[in-house]
């Protein structure tokens, strides 16, 4: 190494050593801020997710002419199908925005831990998904005449969304690099999140039907374990997924 290289390496090391937790969190926040600011201007992502989600529950409403008891039985399934399909639209769009002008490369060129990039993207995707869910739940309540403002149901919607968005963000960053990204994401995503959806439907139905917590806990545990395992895996493998 030449003297010049050594000086430059020392300067780079000093900069790199500043990579402490506040810098990590600042990076995550910078990405979330950027996604929110861009979405506030374009409104492409939330509007497409929302219109799609409301159309789906309208279609179910007219397709299934249900009595009061049947409504309780199908609600959790209809809700999670709606969230899954609307979420796929959002995940695809969110990563396509990064890819279209090469912005994903811009993020990857930054001297930050790439897991911070993943966390930032996942958090903004989660935020968009929760906004859509917060609008869909009251609309569904009105259409189906069911009170969905149950704390347990809201908690499971939150936990289920975390797992779905975590896996979805990872797979969309993989799918976006292919020509068939729109088709590929649901094909990759749905088989992996199937256990999460089954558990989420069971827990949601349990809360709506007023089942005992002892019957709900095993499914709730499955959601929590899914969230933890896939969050850890996604953070670990994101670097390898995005690099050529």
């Amino acid at each position: 190494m030449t003297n010049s290289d050594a000086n430059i390496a020392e300067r780079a090391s000093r900069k790199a050593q500043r990579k402490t937790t506040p810098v990590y969190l600042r990076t995550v926040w910078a990405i979330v801020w950027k996604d929110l600011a861009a979405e506030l201007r374009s409104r492409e992502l939330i509007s497409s997710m929302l219109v799609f989600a409301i159309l789906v529950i309208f279609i179910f409403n007219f397709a299934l002419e249900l009595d009061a008891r049947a409504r309780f039985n199908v609600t959790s399934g209809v809700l999670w199908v709606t969230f899954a399909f609307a979420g796929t639209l959002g995940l695809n769009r969110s990563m396509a925005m990064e890819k279209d002008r090469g912005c994903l490369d811009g993020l990857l060129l930054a001297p930050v831990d790439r897991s911070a990039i993943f966390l930032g993207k996942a958090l903004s995707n989660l935020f968009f998904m929760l906004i859509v869910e917060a609008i869909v739940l009251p609309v569904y309540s009105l259409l189906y005449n069911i009170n969905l403002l149950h704390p347990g149901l809201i908690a499971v919607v939150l936990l289920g969304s975390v797992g779905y968005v975590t896996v979805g963000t990872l797979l969309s960053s993989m799918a976006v690099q292919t020509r068939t990204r729109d088709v590929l994401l649901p094909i990759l995503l749905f088989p992996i999140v199937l256990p999460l959806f089954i558990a989420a439907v069971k827990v949601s139905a349990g809360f709506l039907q007023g089942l005992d917590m002892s019957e709900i806990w095993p499914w709730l545990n499955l959601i929590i374990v899914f969230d933890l395992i896939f969050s850890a895996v996604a953070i670990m493998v994101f670097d390898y997924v995005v690099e050529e």
Partner: protein
Amino acid sequence: MIEVRRLTKRFGLKTVLKDLDFHVQAGEFVALLGPNGAGKTTFLRILASLSRPAMGEIRIAGFRLPQQATAIRHILGVVSHQPLLYGDLTAEENLHFYGKMYGIDLPEKRIREVLDLVGLSLRSRDLVRTFSRGMQQRLAIGRAVLHDPEVMLLDEPHTGLDQDASIMLDGVLREVAARGRTVVMTSHDLARAADLASRFDVISRGKIVASAGRAEMSAERLPVFYREAISETGGRAAASPDHSIHRVQV
């Protein structure tokens, strides 16, 4: 500053770079010339830590790739074919975002300097999607120099630029070079490369096949040197009668 030994990169069965050796001293301005498909962009993407090599050793400022990629990214500025900018953010917001990503202290002051440098101060609050291709490329250059990098990697940076923007870019690159920064630039524009670079390397079929220093290379001589290097790629390159021009045996 940059040392590359026996670099190989494959995409599936296709070998894009094969046993490529490349060395750059600190402060050199290297123009990497070559036909389409020669491997220029792939090579720069590997140096930028966006792509993993199949084999080979890479060191930049003493740091090893890919093991110490984060440290290397602190000292790299990259301009690619695409602007790497968000269309729904303003010019200022884009630079502010990248400033945060690079952990720049006092970003507002630095952002003003950079916008002045690339001549976009008057459009700083306009959305990037309303910019022409040339203006986006100018801002992309601003993004690349925002953190005052030690090494600049430029992949055909003049593509899509009008005359004024090209002159502006040349000015920025001269300023960067004058400050002792190391620059590696791919280009198809031999005249521009002859004007800017201190060394000319020709890459063909995934290897550096010829290299010449600026002192020995006039703007008139460069096209001849380039054509000879490319035409000899399939066979064994003869020693140049001009000893300052090094032919690499392929």
